[in-house]
């Protein structure tokens, strides 16, 4: 086994321990450590990705050299490594882009805490990505929840605490369900390692035994993860949590945390239940319908919203609907589209959050649309970035959003019964997206607006601007050069099976 194969384990471990270290370091050092860790994990994931692309096969890493079914395992394929790399990039950029806001909004003494939470979050995300063990997944789901909750409430305002409580409650409901489903699954199969469960499930299906408990178990796990990733009817906690927390948190939460759960769901679908078995259940239809409804209702709520951050948050609901719609199609192509949309949405949504903060800064800190009038002239970079993000969301070619729409639509055509519904809802949702995003874009360029607000030039916000540029580039890379990425996703999904 190559040395590279240790990287998944290393990256989880580094981020976990650096979190602990951060608590005793001075603030500056903690920040440095945090950045270095994220970068290092990113680099490791990159190397791992290259390595896996080279070998073309996934590998299983035995923790403590206990073989299955007793030991705990880590498994790395192209998709896992790619996700890890992507998460690191987004996280790094979000941290850098929101750093200045962090100082304004969070008490001095709590900065260390913030870095701890970020590191913890990173480790839990990585664990969710890499683990091959269901119970480990559960534990890290909880860790993820706790650290995410911390990220929300680190800004000590009434709203955020309340949002954190709500987030916590919903998450606990979700993880409770997940755990229960997991227990039933364990009861049925006697295994906790994904590959072993899959074999047993296949056997059960073959023998026609325990169908109902199996379905119940899968359903419980699905619902649990849906709640946690804010699929449409379970999204009530989301706008406050994303809307009021500090900007880095919002960006990370919306683009990474919920995506971590979704990724776990993908793993469960492929590696635990088996893609075909999952598709033969009715669950996908339910997911499909909820996905479609999420696309519409999320956008409708966003149109009604009068607060730019909350609007973006609602837009997340719609975008998550896209992803679940992709699951619901029950085809390989749909899955590829969903995974691509995970990437594309992550890149775009964090861009939007970071750009929005730039716009509110030059509007007296207000996030109401009326105050944002002309903000695009006062903060040019943020304006351009927000426009780019919006266009991507609307699905203008060149940006990543277009490709994911393209993939979704192409996937939809292959599914006989769901084609028309998907295409029409896709169209309507694009119109709705156009309405609220373009409304904002026009608003920020409408008039020169209130001249009493300061203008910000490139010098005043170098880091912010550079981060935004990177985000836009990321978006365009996803949009223009999508074929290799799509190939990679396909390869990764193939490795899952």
């Amino acid at each position, binding site marked *: 086994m190559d040395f590279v194969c240790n990287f998944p384990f290393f990256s989880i471990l580094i981020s976990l321990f650096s979190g602990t270290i951060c608590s005793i370091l001075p603030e500056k050092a903690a920040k440095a450590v945090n950045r270095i860790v994220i970068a290092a994990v990113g680099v490791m994931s990159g190397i791992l990705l290259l390595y896996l692309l080279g070998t073309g096969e996934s590998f299983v890493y035995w923790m403590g050299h206990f073989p299955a079914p007793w030991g705990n395992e880590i498994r790395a394929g192209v998709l896992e490594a790619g996700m890890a790399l992507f998460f690191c990039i987004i996280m790094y950029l979000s941290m850098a882009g929101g750093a200045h806001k962090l100082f304004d909004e969070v008490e001095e003494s709590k900065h260390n805490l913030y870095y701890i939470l970020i590191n913890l979050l990173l480790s839990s995300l990585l664990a969710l990505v890499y683990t091959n063990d269901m119970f480990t997944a559960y534990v890290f789901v909880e860790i993820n929840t706790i650290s995410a909750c911390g990220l929300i409430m680190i800004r000590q305002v009434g709203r955020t605490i309340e949002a954190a409580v709500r987030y916590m409650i919903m998450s606990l409901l979700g993880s409770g369900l997940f755990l229960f489903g997991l227990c039933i699954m364990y009861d049925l199969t006697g295994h906790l390692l994904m590959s072993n469960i899959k074999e047993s499930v296949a056997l059960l299906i073959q023998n026609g035994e325990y169908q109902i408990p199996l379905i119940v178990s899968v359903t419980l796990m699905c619902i649990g993860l849906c709640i946690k990733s804010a699929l449409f009817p379970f999204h009530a906690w989301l706008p406050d949590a994303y809307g009021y927390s500090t900007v880095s948190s919002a960006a990370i939460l919306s683009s990474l945390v919920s995506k971590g759960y979704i990724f776990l769901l993908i793993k469960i679908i492929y590696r635990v239940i088996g893609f075909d078995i999952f598709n033969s259940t009715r669950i996908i239809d339910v997911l499909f319908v909820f996905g479609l409804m999420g696309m519409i209702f999320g956008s409708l709520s966003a149109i009604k919203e009068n607060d730019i951050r909350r609007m973006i948050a609602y837009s997340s609901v719609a975008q998550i609907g896209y992803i679940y719609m992709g699951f619901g199609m029950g085809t390989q192509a749909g899955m590829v589209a969903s995974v691509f949309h995970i990437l594309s949405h992550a890149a775009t949504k964090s861009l939007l959050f970071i750009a929005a903060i730039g716009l509110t800064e030059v509007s007296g800190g207000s996030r109401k649309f009326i105050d944002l009038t002309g903000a695009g002239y006062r903060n040019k970079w943020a304006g351009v970035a927000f426009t780019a993000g919006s266009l991507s969301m609307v699905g203008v070619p060149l940006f990543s959003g277009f490709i994911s729409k393209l993939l979704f639509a192409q996937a939809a055509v292959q599914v006989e019964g769901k084609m028309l519904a998907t295409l*029409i809802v896709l169209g309507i949702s694009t119109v709705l997206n156009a309405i609220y995003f373009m409304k904002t874009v026009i608003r920020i360029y409408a008039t020169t607006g209130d001249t009493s607000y300061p203008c910000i030039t490139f010098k005043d916000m170098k880091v912010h601007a550079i981060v935004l540029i990177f985000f836009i580039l990321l978006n365009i890379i996803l949009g223009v050069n999508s*074929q290799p990425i799509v190939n990679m996703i396909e390869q990764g999904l193939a490795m899952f099976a």
Partner: protein
Amino acid sequence: MIICIILLPIIAGILVPLLPFHKRCHKEIFLEGAVILNSILVWYLLLHHSESTFLLAHFTGDLNISFRVDGMSMVFAGLVSGLWPFATLYAFEYMTKEKHENSFFLFYTMTYGVTLGIAFAANLLTMYFFYELLTLVTVPLVMHTLTREAVLASRKYLYYSLGGAAFAFIGLIMVIVYGNTTDFILGGVLDLAKIGDRTNVLLLIYVMAFMGFGVKAAVCPFNSWLPQAGVAPTPVTALLHAVAVVKSGAFAIIRLTYYSFGTEFLRGTWAQTTVMIVVMFTIVYGCSRAVKETHIKRRLAYSTISNLSYILFGAVIMTPLGLTGAITHLVFHAVMKISSFFCAGAIMHQTDKRYVHELNGLGYRMPCVFGIFTISALALMGVPGLAGFISKWNLAQAAVDSQNPLAYGGIACLLISALLTAIYMLSIVVRAFFPGKDFDDSSLQDAHDPNWKMLLPLFVFTVFIILFGIHSQSIVNFFYDVAAGVY
């Protein structure tokens, strides 16, 4: 070569705010030079084009951004490149009274490149890409005055266009999935074997895509953005919202119908009936709204709505003759409408009058402008000897030839619309030239014809209106060849 043609105006546009021009006339010379140079290049390319496809970039899978010169693109690119230098010249004079000149010329010139991109697109994806881009670069132009009205109009314009594109996108997907290729091939690219029994679904998608692209072509019920967008400066309204933008909607529909879905597949189906009814309704609807409207530019905008549907009517007849008619009207209407819009702009620029009832007696003060306006009005009505008659003739012949009873009704719609056109255009002319017995023209002492920068384009367009009217043979033959796929 093609890429250079598309990029040149975009770069020139971007340079406008960046270069330090000492005098306004330097800027004018720079811009006009760039535009003329580009037009010359375009014509050179059209006359020496090769069949080959120029591949710019792979997108995903076998989707790519590529360009090619074929018959339709020759028509559209030739039209656009012919009109743009004149419109730019006109804009110089017009914009002396408006603010933010630089940003105006930035986007105005960029639009040229983007429109050419639509014209030269070799496949549906490329066209879709430039189509979206066109929306984006023209929004700032609509918003240019930054008044509340302009902001609302641009918002609406964006919603409609992007929303329409979303549905057009679905059509694109269908072509990708069920077609052999996305390239434009006259006769369509759909693979009937792949379709199987899903014909009806495909037809539904066609109708959706038609309406989607139809948003730009202001098909009823998606037309209300166009009159509102009239708040933009007149060069924009004239060139973009009478020619470049709206015609690219029609152009896209032609591409979709003839080059992607294929007329063989569509002719005689319920989809054809549906879109034809929509188009016929729009023809009459646009005109009747124009009659009711008293704001000159909005009136012309409604007229554009109706006339665009003439083009679409030709297109949905789905025969080579129909396409010929559509192309003829696409070109001729562009010249007629830009001419009448420029007249309206000249009136606004010289007198600040915006409503029809304010025009009494102006004909004697601005004889050139109103004379030209009269000619374009007559042309739009379809008086023989002017361009409009020929295009209507071709459309009607195509409709008669198609043996489709609905198309016969369409001809009736054309004629009703012609009558309404006479009403709304001639009532302006009559007011201007026959103000009534007791009219006191002392209030109009200051009004006079504009200077040469405005008049030259007008005269040139008028010459073309008459020229096309009395000698259309060669150009219509060319269009017929285009429709038959010779080029």
